[in-house]
């Protein structure tokens, strides 16, 4: 049956994603436990969010005791890109399938699952997404759990070094496009600069890290969109 075929194909394509998720969420789990959460609490965050950058920023807000509004706004801004992906999928997904399926498929709109779904040659099916989700999401949650559990038994020197893992991943996402597209390079450089400015200038230090991410993201993206609006793709 077509649905089962699509599901299997999605599950197979989800395997490399699950492996990558495991490694990255391992670092997330450790970071969460180091900050005082339990491994199960960290796993719960991973299970209900399935978003690396958003969870990482959320963790910082939890540790800093930020407001719920700050949390909501930070998640909104950082995860706003999913709206674009969901919008893109809303045009691409097979329209002969039940529309109600999309409420479940939406849960699996991540950078990677969107990537494999949107780049499929034939019309993507929600069952393809279900397949990818059923493999990738357990990878994300289990990685978090094992990271959280082993965080407590690993030597401090290893934990300190692993603090860089999530940033290494972020750089692997943003640098290659910056290499190929000058506007993206400018966005990355400007965001580094503005973020450092907000961090180091004493008069601006009242701005929490969560709001600093929002301010930098909105200001730089809007500025770049205004400047590159005519020449863009």
């Amino acid at each position, binding site marked *: 049956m077509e649905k089962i075929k699509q599901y299997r194909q999605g599950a197979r394509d989800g395997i490399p994603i699950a492996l990558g998720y495991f490694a990255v969420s391992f670092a997330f789990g450790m970071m969460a436990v180091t900050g005082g959460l339990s491994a199960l609490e960290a796993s719960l965050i991973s299970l209900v969010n399935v978003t690396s950058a958003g969870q990482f920023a*959320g963790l910082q807000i939890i540790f800093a005791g930020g407001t719920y509004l700050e949390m909501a706004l930070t998640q909104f801004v950082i995860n706003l890109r999913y709206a674009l992906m969901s919008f893109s999928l809303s045009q691409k997904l097979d329209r002969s399938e039940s529309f109600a399926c999309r409420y479940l498929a939406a849960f699996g709109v991540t950078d990677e699952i969107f990537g494999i779904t949107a780049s499929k040659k034939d019309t993507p099916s929600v069952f393809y997404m279900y397949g990818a989700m059923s493999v990738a999401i357990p990878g994300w949650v289990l990685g978090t759990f094992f990271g959280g559990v082993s965080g407590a038994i690993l030597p401090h020197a290893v934990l300190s070094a692993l603090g860089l893992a999530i940033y290494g991943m972020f750089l692997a996402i943003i640098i290659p496009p910056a290499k190929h597209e000058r506007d993206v390079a400018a966005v*990355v450089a400007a965001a580094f600069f503005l973020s450092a400015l907000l961090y180091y200038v004493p008069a601006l230090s009242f701005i929490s890290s969560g709001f600093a991410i929002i301010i930098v993201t909105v200001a730089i993206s809007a500025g770049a969109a205004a400047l590159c609006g005519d020449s863009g793709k």
Partner: protein
Amino acid sequence: MGVKLYIYIAVMAVVTYLIRVLPLVLFKKEIKSRFVKRFLYYVPYAALASMTFPAILYATDSVAAAACGFAVALVLAWKEKSMVTVAIVACAVVFIVERLI
């Protein structure tokens, strides 16, 4: 942390799910605004960059070791190594540099 933690998690999960589900079930027409499209295109890069720097420098015990890890990660990312490779090598650099200083 208790109840407050679960409220945080609920806020995160609800906001994130709404962002994902609303465009998928509501938008039927294409967004025409070039500005909005470009803005959304740049958002992940600006967000990830602002989260990375300068926070990366304070993510380990030593700023010097973190700076070395940052530099190596930049080079590997520039060479388009995989996410996992960049992350693991950056951590290894920090581990080694922290042993040396």
